[in-house]
Each structure stands twice: as structure tokens, then as C-alpha cells.
């Protein structure tokens, strides 16, 4: 492959992956922004989405794009199922309680997945066309995954800025007591926000499986959680737009780093990329604790 094509390909794939990282982090940011809790089990919810797409495709031959509504619905229900018995009780508790609770939720999903589906690595191959873009051949499925991620972001934006529910959510974020005295059922807003956040997270797991339909296993969530943390911090915790831009930057960074490091002998590109990512996280936390775009 000529060098120019390699550059274009790397950047293009990086940006597409980044868009998916962006929407994956939006769910985490929404939950943090509204409920002020960090969902340590984030990646496990994405894992559920990846399996959802995998099983619908493998068992019923369902077009992976069509598994998205199922992921959203499963996520929304999972969100409610965890909110009422667990999350609601830890909102006002010391931080450690919510960290432990969401960590436990992640473990529960992970072990349930292992018991139900074993710890085998799974993958599927969805035959769709390849497209030529600027001399680079690219899987249409990856473009579709990124397009759907943008659609989800749009949906998210519309809910947030164009509906009564969104106005109420923003009110709760800005002043919870103010929200109470205007008659907003704050508990219900928390439940809905958590549910929407988890729905988006599970759906982003589906998108990741469409983008890269291999390596689906019960433990895939851990690294996804860590990446989402790096991106969320880059974008400024709780900022959804920031998370999205940071996601794209991170996708670009990851791909470029991987390609560059592959060329160096004796280096494990995946491991070192991860290392650089966390060094980056540390630096951002020290230098710009409110994120790259924070004021």
C-alpha cells in the first residue's frame, strides 16, 4: 500500500472508530452529569450490546443494523431494573457506595454472560460491500456503524435540547432543589436518565460489534470502561458534546499510534498504545482537570 493511502486509511478508520467511542462515552457522561455517579460497570453494558447483535445475527440471521432497536430496548430495561433496587439507594450515599454498586453491576453482567454463553471469543462475518474512498478500500459495515452512532448522537441531542424531558433533566443537573420546588419528580428524572444512559451504552456495544465483529467475550468490558474513562476525562466529565469530540480524537490517536508502533521492532503496539493512553489521562487530569474543552 502506498504511504499516502496508509495515512488516509489510518485516519479514516480512526475517525470512524472514534465516532463509536464518542457515543459509547456519551452514555457514561449522561449518567455522571445527571446522577453524579461514575458507572464503573460501563463496559459490561457495552458487552451485552455486542452479544445482542451477535446472537440475533447468528441465531436468526438478523441484519446487525436491525439489532440496534433491541439493544436500545434491552439497555433501557436494564437501566430501570438496576435503578430502582440499587442505583437510587446510592445516589446520596458517599462516593464509595456508588463505585462499589456499579462495579458489582458490571461483575454481575459479566458473570451472567459467562454462565450463559461461556467465555469463548466469538465473532461473526456480515458480508457487505467494500467501498473505495480516496484510493482506500473500506468496509461499508464500518461506515454504517459510524453513521448509526451519529444518528444516536442526534437522538440524544434532540431529547436533551428539544423536549420537556430534556429541559427537566437540565434543570435537575443545574439545581436539584430548584427542580424539586418547580414540581419536577427528581427521582423519576434520575430513573429516566439512567435508563437512557444505559440504553445508549448498550447500543454503542452493538455498534462496536458491527464495526469490529470479533473478540466478543464476557470480559471485553474492562478495557472499554477504561477507554471510556480516558475519553470522558478528555472531554470534560459530564459534557456529552465534549465526550463525542474527545472520542473522535481518541479513535484517531489509537489508530495512528497502533500503525506507527507496529513499524517499530520489539514493541507490542496494542499494549504500548494503552500505556500511552493512560499516560495521556494522567497528564490531562494534572493539567486540565476539567477536560480539553472545559472552562
Amino acid at each position: 500500500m502506498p504511504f499516502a493511502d496508509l495515512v488516509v486509511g489510518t485516519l479514516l478508520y480512526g475517525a470512524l472508530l472514534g465516532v463509536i467511542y464518542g457515543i459509547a462515552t456519551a452514555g457514561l457522561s449522561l449518567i455522571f452529569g445527571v446522577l453524579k455517579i461514575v458507572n464503573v460497570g460501563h463496559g459490561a453494558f457495552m458487552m451485552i450490546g455486542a452479544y445482542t447483535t451477535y446472537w440475533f445475527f447468528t441465531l436468526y440471521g438478523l441484519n446487525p443494523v436491525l439489532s440496534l432497536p433491541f439493544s436500545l430496548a434491552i439497555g433501557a430495561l436494564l437501566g430501570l431494573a438496576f435503578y430502582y433496587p440499587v442505583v437510587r439507594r446510592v445516589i446520596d450515599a458517599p462516593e464509595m457506595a456508588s463505585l462499589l454498586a456499579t462495579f458489582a453491576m458490571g461483575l454481575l453482567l459479566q458473570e451472567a454472560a459467562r454462565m450463559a454463553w461461556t467465555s469463548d471469543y466469538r465473532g461473526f462475518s456480515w458480508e457487505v460491500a467494500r467501498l473505495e474512498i480516496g484510493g482506500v478500500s473500506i468496509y461499508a459495515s464500518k461506515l454504517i456503524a459510524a453513521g448509526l452512532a451519529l444518528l444516536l448522537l442526534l437522538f440524544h441531542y434532540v431529547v436533551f435540547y428539544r423536549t420537556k424531558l430534556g429541559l427537566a433533566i437540565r434543570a435537575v443537573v443545574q439545581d436539584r432543589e430548584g427542580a424539586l420546588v418547580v414540581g419536577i419528580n427528581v427521582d423519576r428524572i434520575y430513573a429516566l436518565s439512567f435508563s437512557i444512559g444505559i440504553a445508549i451504552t448498550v447500543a454503542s456495544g452493538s455498534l462496536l460489534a458491527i464495526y469490529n465483529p470479533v473478540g466478543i467475550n464476557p470480559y471485553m468490558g474492562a478495557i472499554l470502561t477504561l477507554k471510556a474513562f480516558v475519553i470522558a476525562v478528555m472531554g470534560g466529565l459530564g459534557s456529552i458534546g465534549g465526550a463525542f469530540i474527545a472520542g473522535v480524537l481518541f479513535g484517531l490517536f489509537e489508530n495512528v499510534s497502533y500503525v506507527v508502533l507496529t513499524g517499530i521492532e520489539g514493541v507490542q503496539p496494542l499494549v504500548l498504545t494503552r500505556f500511552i493512553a493512560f499516560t495521556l489521562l494522567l497528564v490531562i487530569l494534572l493539567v486540565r482537570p476539567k477536560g480539553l474543552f472545559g472552562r
Partner: protein
Amino acid sequence: MGEGLVVEGLESGYGEMQVLWGVSLRVNRASMTVVLGPNGAGKTTLLRTIMGINKPWKGKVIMEGEDVTFVPPHEKVARGMTLVPEGRRLFPELTVEENLLLGAYTRISTRSTAGYREALSQVYELFPRLRERRGQKAGTLSGGEQQMLAIGRALMSEPRILLLDEPSQGLAPKIAIQIIDLLSNLRRERGLTILLVEQNIAAALKNADYAYVMEQGVIIKEGERDKILHDESIRQAYLGL
């Protein structure tokens, strides 16, 4: 004169710490009643407990004859009671008009604006300043304007019972008096039942019908405005006379 709001033996607090030790009071319909008391007496806690933001431990809250002790705040708003909280608690990043619309939250739907248009123009009539600044973020308003917005936001829910926690706090004396006079007008013109907590005692007493004095979580004195106004110990403790 009917009962607007009755509180019986109310107890509550934070965690293990009890703040209210059996507070009873009565606010007649379309009257203005004021609660006075030193810092830390539990006045804010009293209003928050009446509203349901703090859970009552014991006692009763009765709204126009109906027991609403354990009714959550959002339902109380829907039933016609709201609170202008201490520190105003506006939504700083939202515009003045969005703050006002949220005041009518229990009545608005995304489809029909009829429910709040009328209330909105009434609030703008009352506070022309807010109309001028309706596109501005609430956080950028001056202290006096913010207080107008807090009161306007509360009026948007068209309450029959209005609780206010130190609405004149942090305002220039002249504006503070204007705000309290305005509340008194609202009571007269709209028949609003008002329970007011105030540090600006002279202004509050001038307009109130009845007053309670609270110390360390209990009511230690109560009476008609004139009785409290002429009470020697109150004049010394609160009016500096």
C-alpha cells in the same frame, strides 16, 4: 377565615441530628404569616419539611384541610403549594424565560402552550424587568432580578399557598422592602396564602397579619402583628430598639 396551612407537632432533622422539636403553626387562607428567629433556629428546615424536601419524622402538614404530610414535593406543587427557597435555587445556565416555563412544569406539555402563556404574561406584568431580560441566562442577573425571577418562577405554578425563605436576603434595603410589599399585594389581590421567613423583620412585620418566633427548633412566641411588634423582648432581640 379558612385554614390555608396547618402544621402540627412537626419534627425533623438531618441524619441523627434533630432540628425541629414539635413545631405547630397555622396560616389562615389569604393571610400573610411570618416566622422570625435567629440563625440556625430551624426556619429553613421548617419550610423544607413542610414542602416535603426533608422527610417529616413526626407530626402533620395539612393543606386546606387535607393531610399532605408525606406527599412528595412535586405533587404538592401540582396541588397548589410551592416554596421560594433560601438562596433562590434558579437554573443559572437556562434563560429567564426557560426558568419561568419550568415554574409551570406541572402544567406544561410540549404540545400546548396555553397552560402557561397567561401566567407568563402576568409574571411579566408584575416584573417588567424580567420581560426585558427574558433571553438572558438566569446566572447573569443581578441579585434583585434573581429574586424577582425566583418569585416569578414560583408564581408560574399558580400556587394558592406560597412559602418563602428569606426573599430579601442579600438585597439592598430599598429593594428588599419592595419585594415584601409586592408579596403583600399578591396576598390582597390574588388571595394568596403566604408563609414568610424573614430576617428583615421591620419590613416583614409591617405587612404580616400574624407572627411566630422560633428558637432552637421550637416556637417560643406567637401573636397578631401588633402584639409582636410591641413585645419588649422581641423589640430588643430583633428590632434593635
